[in-house]
């Protein structure tokens, strides 16, 4: 019996019991739809986390003093209190690292920013102009301070959106105005465009950027660098850039081969992969729960196939008496089971896609229907059909034609 005839027979058998076939399919439909929706929710949140992190500059590398050193066996000091990074380190990285496109020192101070009657507690960060490209930050208006501003510790700054809205009245253009941070007057020369919250719920727009030396000398009065930000050539070379930076800094800090690093180099890529793996776990978990319902659907198919074989015992006997071999009967019932599961699969995929878009529409959760989840669901359906259909079909194929013919 050829494939087309097998399909036709199976299709007709299903049509004969439309409601029953549909109810059996329902298990598969729900299973597939939930797998697709769950995976879509998981993938969607993963993608949105990824894009948020990339918004922070996906090639970004940051270097901090290492806090893992016990100082003389006494109390250990927090990282920001360590003074191992110097401006020379920044210059060394800029001069010798091939896989680094931009590098900037950073120091930060907290304080109150004041504009006339309005004030707001915020953070000021002293950086080089390259910092904006490292963090992938755009200007809404105005200009960025220059290398020369850094050299002369110019009293200029860029303000973030949150700062702007808190110390300037709506509609007022901050560019050109003088504000004071901890009593130091700074001229606003530009406004940063909005970046929103980062992955950890921190408001990234609540910030003032000023030339590195301005904050280091005028506000903090320190000589060291708190953090160094750098940018790798691309996301893939961030590992190479990391080891390059480590080599340069070890040499610069005159560390012996046996010494531990007195700094820590971390890449954004690392962070992304850590967070992605967390949400990957979530996706797998959701898919596994949904997968269970697919198995339950499969058991439904098995049940109905047993009933179907029992009901059609006489038909099986007749088919055998006119020359059907065991394999013909086996295939007939197997194709029927696969047809149920695959038809259920198609409907389930349609439902899953619809449900995913409803979830993102009504709950505004990000969802992403991946092709791989559709392909996977189909394969699982086919396997479910074969797996749960095989045993009843094999029973049918092993019937004794004499007894099957006499079955009432």
């Amino acid at each position, binding site marked *: *019996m*050829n494939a087309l*005839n097998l399909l036709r027979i199976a299709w*007709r058998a299903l049509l*004969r019991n439309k409601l029953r076939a549909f109810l059996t399919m329902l298990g598969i439909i729900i299973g597939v739809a939930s797998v697709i929706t769950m995976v879509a929710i998981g993938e969607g949140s993963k993608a949105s986390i990824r894009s948020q992190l990339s918004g922070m500059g996906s090639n970004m590398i940051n270097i901090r003093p290492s806090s893992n050193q016990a100082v003389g066996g006494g109390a250990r000091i927090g990282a920001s209190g360590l003074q191992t990074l110097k401006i020379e380190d920044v210059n060394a990285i800029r001069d010798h690292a091939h896989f680094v496109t931009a590098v900037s020192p950073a120091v930060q101070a907290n304080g109150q920013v004041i504009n006339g009657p309005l004030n707001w507690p915020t953070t000021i960060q002293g950086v080089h102009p390259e910092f904006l490209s490292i963090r992938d930050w755009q200007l809404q208006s105005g200009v960025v301070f220059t290398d020369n501003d850094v050299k002369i510790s110019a009293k200029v700054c860029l303000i973030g959106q949150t700062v702007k809205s808190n110390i300037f009245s709506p509609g007022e253009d901050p560019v050109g105005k003088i504000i004071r941070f901890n009593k130091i007057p700074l001229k606003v020369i530009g406004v940063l465009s909005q970046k929103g919250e980062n992955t950890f719920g921190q408001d990234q727009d609540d910030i003032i950027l000023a030339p590195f030396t301005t904050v280091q000398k005028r506000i903090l009065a320190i000589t060291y660098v708190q953090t160094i930000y750098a940018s790798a050539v691309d996301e893939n070379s961030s590992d190479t850039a990391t080891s390059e930076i480590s080599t340069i800094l070890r040499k610069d800090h005159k560390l012996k081969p046996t010494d531990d690093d007195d700094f820590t180099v971390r890449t954004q890529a690392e962070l992304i992969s850590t967070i992605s793996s967390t949400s990957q776990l979530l996706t797998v978990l959701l898919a596994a729960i949904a997968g269970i319902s697919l198995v339950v659907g499969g058991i439904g198919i098995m049940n109905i196939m047993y009933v179907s074989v029992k009901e059609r015992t*006489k*038909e099986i*006997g*007749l*088919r*055998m*008496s*006119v*020359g*059907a*071999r*065991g*394999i*013909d009967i086996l295939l007939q019932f197997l194709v029927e089971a696969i047809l149920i599961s695959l038809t259920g699969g198609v409907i389930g995929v349609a439902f899953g896609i619809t449900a995913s878009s409803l979830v993102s529409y009504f709950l505004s959760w990000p969802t992403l229907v991946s092709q791989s989840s559709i392909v996977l669901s189909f394969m699982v359906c086919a396997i479910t059909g074969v797996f749960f259909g095989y045993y009843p079909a094999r029973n049918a194929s092993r019937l004794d*034609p*004499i007894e099957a*013919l006499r079955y009432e």
Partner: protein
Amino acid sequence: MGNKILDIKNLKRVFKMGSEIVHALKGISFIVEEGEFVTIMGSSGSGKTTLLNIIGCLDKPTDGDYLLDGVNVKLLSRNELAGLRNNKIGFVFQSYNLLARTSALENVELPLMYNSKISSKVREEKAKQALHAVRLDDRIDHLPSQLSGGQQQRLAIARALVNEPVMILADEATGNLDTKTSYEIMSLLQELNQQQKKTIVFVTHEPDIASFSSRTITLKDGKVIKDTKNENVRSAKEELAALPVSDYNS
């Protein structure tokens, strides 16, 4: 005389029913040649059904040999038996055994479906020819439920004819039909036997039906007790014409 279609030699069939051993067939021998119309008679328990199952290649003998058209059935596997049923035997059952909700044409096509050598086009042609042979040309698209008992049995005969078997094997094929319809079926079988030289083996317990065949083999207790050529074969067609008019309406 023609070929030996059935060559049965000392056929025995033993069943084990729990601890009891039942000898259903106790050494049966006969030969059926091409073109014969044989009825096998016997009361229930005579081994009739067991013999029919063996002749129909649904069952194998415990001992003895059964050659169907020269093939020794005893040596065949389950699948080979299926192939033999497909190629050499046309079954007609008492309860028709048609597939419900399946058109007449497709019911007739069924045996050919299991013959991979036949294309769908040839299949349809052959099925139409078989339907023509039983005069159901105008019922091609009808479902079994839309046909009368006699028509359903004619459809079953068409299904038995479609694979051009060497033998038509009928099991109480008129058992569910009234006299008139029975005679119609017998008339059709006689026609197939006489005009197309089809070999027919017909199992029945009605002597009336047996009188339409050319030979009657009678079984009792698993043995052949009588094997007689029927010198005076009745014509079912004439008998049909002679039936009282009132019977036509029943």
